[in-house]
């Protein structure tokens, strides 16, 4: 019987345990919620860890008890009679009260953290307006007069207070390593605030189902030293650089950053204990922005961690004439009268005042396009302009490539699109 039992129960059960422990062994977790790289993160993190530990204890106790019962009280050859009892008041009161006590241990810190994290942000906070669109993010810094898209810059050590609204359906603002989710509700303004404590680049996601391309609504967050933030903000406030020649490859001159204060982690991140499943935090580099170069003042691209660089493959059917080399000046001329201006604004270009699509004033300074799903380079820009709906399902931006099949007829040849892309790329 024992052998039989081992064959029938223990083997599959052990195999299962083995495989499940595998699932906890992902060592590389760049979007782990246990990151805790902000004050918000720390509060939530310590609470979640309490829950994980208590949950694990209950889990182990109950499941062990089940296995014990199954082994000890299985039907044996001797046909032992079952002990007959059908209730026990003391026991039942005990296992009503004990969970209640455990829950009280959870409830108290929970309520405390609720009131802590949902308090009003300090008045000195950096104000950021987050506006959800199908399927991209608009970010405004009212204190600085900046409007940008899909990329957030936040100074380390200063509280950022986000006012969340949506232009269409519901979305949810989530940076797993910095904050929890807060929904963007139509006809409401929601708030969430946190204080980032280390400089790095992070992934942000839309976490509320919002239609066809919900999966393709990402954003990037760059937490930088306050001085670097100020440099970035000052640059973003300027008008578009127009058709200036393409700037040198961004981030190429990292050494020119000498003299800027080195970015330090303002507060050391949580202790070394890591819960099951969390083996290591992503290695936190200490990137240094090229502050002296006021034409870009962006997060150095060569310091971007792998996991914030999108790797979405482009549709195989979508090709682009490799011989077309774009000319930014021609592109600028074309842009000013193209349908682009109906939806996109470029500060300094009087005709381009559209507000439906992302503001393109410094689009060349961003690392990604299309809601954070493609890297921002000429190739992807060209394909995107040529056929956005093919690049991103449901895209509200129509296709522009001639001979592309879609709902609207395309307008431009590959050469014209290459010019447009060259112009946009030049808007550092």
């Amino acid at each position, binding site marked *: 019987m024992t052998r039989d039992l081992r064959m029938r129960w223990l083997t*599959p059960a052990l195999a*299962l345990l083995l495989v*499940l422990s595998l*699932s906890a*062994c*992902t060592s*590389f*977790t*760049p*979007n782990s*919620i246990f990151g805790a790289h902000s004050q918000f993160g720390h509060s*939530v993190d310590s*609470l*979640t860890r309490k*829950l*994980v530990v208590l949950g694990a204890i*209950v*889990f182990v106790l109950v499941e062990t008890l*089940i296995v014990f019962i*199954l082994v000890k*009280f299985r*039907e044996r050859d001797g046909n032992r*009679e*079952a*002990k*007959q009892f*059908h209730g026990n008041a003391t*026991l*039942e009161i005990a296992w009503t009260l004990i*969970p209640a006590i455990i*829950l009280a241990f*959870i*409830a108290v810190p*929970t309520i405390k*953290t*609720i009131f802590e994290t949902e308090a009003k942000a300090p008045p000195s906070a950096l104000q950021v307006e987050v506006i959800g669109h199908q399927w991209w993010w608009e970010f405004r810094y009212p204190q600085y007069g900046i409007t940008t898209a899909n990329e957030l810059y936040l100074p380390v050590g200063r509280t950022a207070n986000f006012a969340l609204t949506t232009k*269409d359906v519901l979305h949810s603002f*989530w940076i797993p*390593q910095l*904050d*929890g*989710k*807060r*929904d963007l*509700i*139509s*006809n409401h303004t929601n708030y969430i605030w946190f204080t980032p404590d280390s400089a790095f680049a992070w*992934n942000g996601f839309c*976490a*509320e*189902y*919002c*239609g*066809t391309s919900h*999966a*393709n609504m990402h954003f990037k967050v760059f937490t930088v030293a306050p001085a670097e933030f100020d440099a970035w903000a000052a640059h973003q406030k300027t008008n578009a650089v127009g058709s200036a020649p393409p700037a040198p490859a961004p981030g190429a001159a990292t050494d020119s950053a000498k003299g800027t204060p080195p970015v330090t982690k303002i507060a050391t991140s949580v202790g070394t204990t890591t819960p099951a*499943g969390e083996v290591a935090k992503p290695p936190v580099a200490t990137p240094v922005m090229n502050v002296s170069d006021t034409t870009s003042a962006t997060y150095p691209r060569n310091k971007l961690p792998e*996991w914030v660089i999108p*790797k979405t493959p482009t549709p195989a059917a979508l090709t682009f004439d490799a011989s077309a080399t774009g000319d930014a000046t021609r592109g600028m001329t074309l842009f000013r009268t193209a349908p682009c201006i109906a939806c996109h604004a470029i500060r300094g270009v009087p005709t381009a005042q559209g507000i439906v699509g992302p503001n393109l004033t410094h689009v060349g300074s961003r690392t990604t396009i299309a809601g954070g799903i493609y890297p921002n380079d000429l190739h992807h820009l060209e394909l995107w302009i040529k056929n956005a709906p093919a690049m991103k*399902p449901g895209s509200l931006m129509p296709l522009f490539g001639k001979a592309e099949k879609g709902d609207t007829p395309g307008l431009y040849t590959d050469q014209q699109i290459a010019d447009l892309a060259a112009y946009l790329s030049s808007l550092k």
Partner: protein
Amino acid sequence: MATTVSLPPTPYTVTSDKYESGIWSWLSTTDHKRIGQLYLYTSLFWFLVGGLEAGMIRTQLYGPNGHFVSATTYNELFTMHGTTMIFLVIMPLSAAFFNFLIPLQIGARDVAFPRLNAFSYWVFLFGGLFINASWFFHAAPNAGWFGYAPLTTRPYSPGLNIDFWVIGLQILGISSLAAGFNFITTIINMRAPGMHFMRMPVFTWMAFITQFMIILAFPIVTVALTLLMLDRFFGTNFYEISAGADPLLWQHLFWLFGHPEVYILILPAFGLVSEVLPVFSRKPLFGYPVMIYSGILIAFLGFGVWAHHMFAVGMGPIADSFFSITTMLIAIPTGVKIFNWLGTMWGGSLRFTTAMKFAIGLVALFTIGGISGVMHASPPSDLQQTDSYFIVAHFHYVLFGGSMMGLFAGLYFFYPKITGRLMGEKAGSWHFWLTFIGMNLTFFPMHFLGLHGMPRRISTYDAGQGWEQDNHLASYGAILIVVGTCFFVYNWFRSMKTGKVAGNDPWGGATLEWMIPSPPPDYNFATIPNVTSRYPLWDRKSPKLTAEVPHGSADESKIEVELMGQKTGTLPAPSDTIGNAASAQPVISSAKQLGIVMPTPTIRPLLAALSLGSVFIGLILHKNLPIMFLAAICFVLSLYSWLLTPLEPEHH
């Protein structure tokens, strides 16, 4: 099975008018057992469809940037997977058990309103077909089973997709409400003499509680859906954000239904497991009254926790705290149930049949879902967990590890009562282990996916986010579940032909349904039994098991099984019936021979359901008024015809 030695090759057959086979007999049936089987087979069919959808989801998500299906199709798949599994599988599978078991367990011959019961089924069938017909129009619902406004309003979902969903769910709601009132009336009014509420089998108790939740929760979602339908078809502005609507109205209405719905899905499974565990532990249920009270408490608290689905919408600290506390409170009665099941097994003599394995599976797996449930009862922590794969893991442990495991336990346990034969234990064991391992392999890694930042409802994810390995594991697990389900389907149909003949009581059951032949004759009980304790059959067969359970007075302790008017008898005397089930092959008389009046079969409920459904077809065909009016007139006429026909033939 000890009680099935030397059995005749086939179960008995009853030759009565009602048990004639043929399509017509099924279309016109009012027999609760047949309607139960209709529910059963329909929901098992949808289970395969929903499983297919899940398989496609797991194929798409196996690796990063998957392109097995388009984003549009993926969104339809996850919406329909959820909608199907909730409304077309778990609820009607529970309803199959309600139909089949409630009258048998309370010692009744049918439900209170047999024709309304048929109507419920036909409306359910129609609703399921309606909502799935959308696939053929390339317009399957695509806004999630929760259908958040304003995504579901006309400006953001101009197609037919949401029309199918909003109308289909209303149709299904009619079915659930009609059934709910029917079962409540049945349980209150038709219990056998001596079956006090505190002697009722636990499954019937949980079914009873579930029906109250249904009749209280479904009107709420019906209101929500009707408002949405008015918006979509008639230009009202309940959810129309351009007119200043507050989209949270939908969320509050939906979850005020949606959370009780969770308990509507789990309580019947709890009830089934509470039947299975005592039988195979050879012990009465531990703490019967506490099990009942905790079920009631869960149902009651279940109506006060809805906004824990909405911690991220910014309700403010007071509301967050309130719903956090009520949610934690609900863990207490649920935990009590778990411990009482363990108490039931403690000291028992456990026999690991397939039904028992699935029942234990529920206890083990629901515990995991319960623990993660408490974790997101804490709003700050939930802000990180909500809408991530952690939630997907949680509710699959609750609904697959809980509801489906319990329902499978019930299927293996009651299969012999339904078909007269036992399901194969060997294939059953394969089914259990593949499902159990596959289930954990699929859903346990999803906890980590959520904690590692993977949002829900995404049709694709990028490479290099640390999500590949766990998604691989989840997809492999899905393969195991598919293989396990193949064993189940094979076992199901094969056992019907070659399974061992069950006899009345193959498991040594304790409740009334095991007293009568399998499958039961159309009238169930020749003589309505007299009940004196919670375990009437154990009282007779193994009195030791119930020695400590409260009993009624001695003078009412005899179960009458003699056939009315047939005392020279063709049915074995009670002790024989119970003791060695089929030592003599029973020849079952028809209801007519016994002088038992049963409801007349009638097609009218089907006609009423069809014409009611046609009203909705007219609505979705761009408000086709002629069809709608014609169908409405047909509906009224069929109702008249139904109501003017007597339920039973003339009494002699």
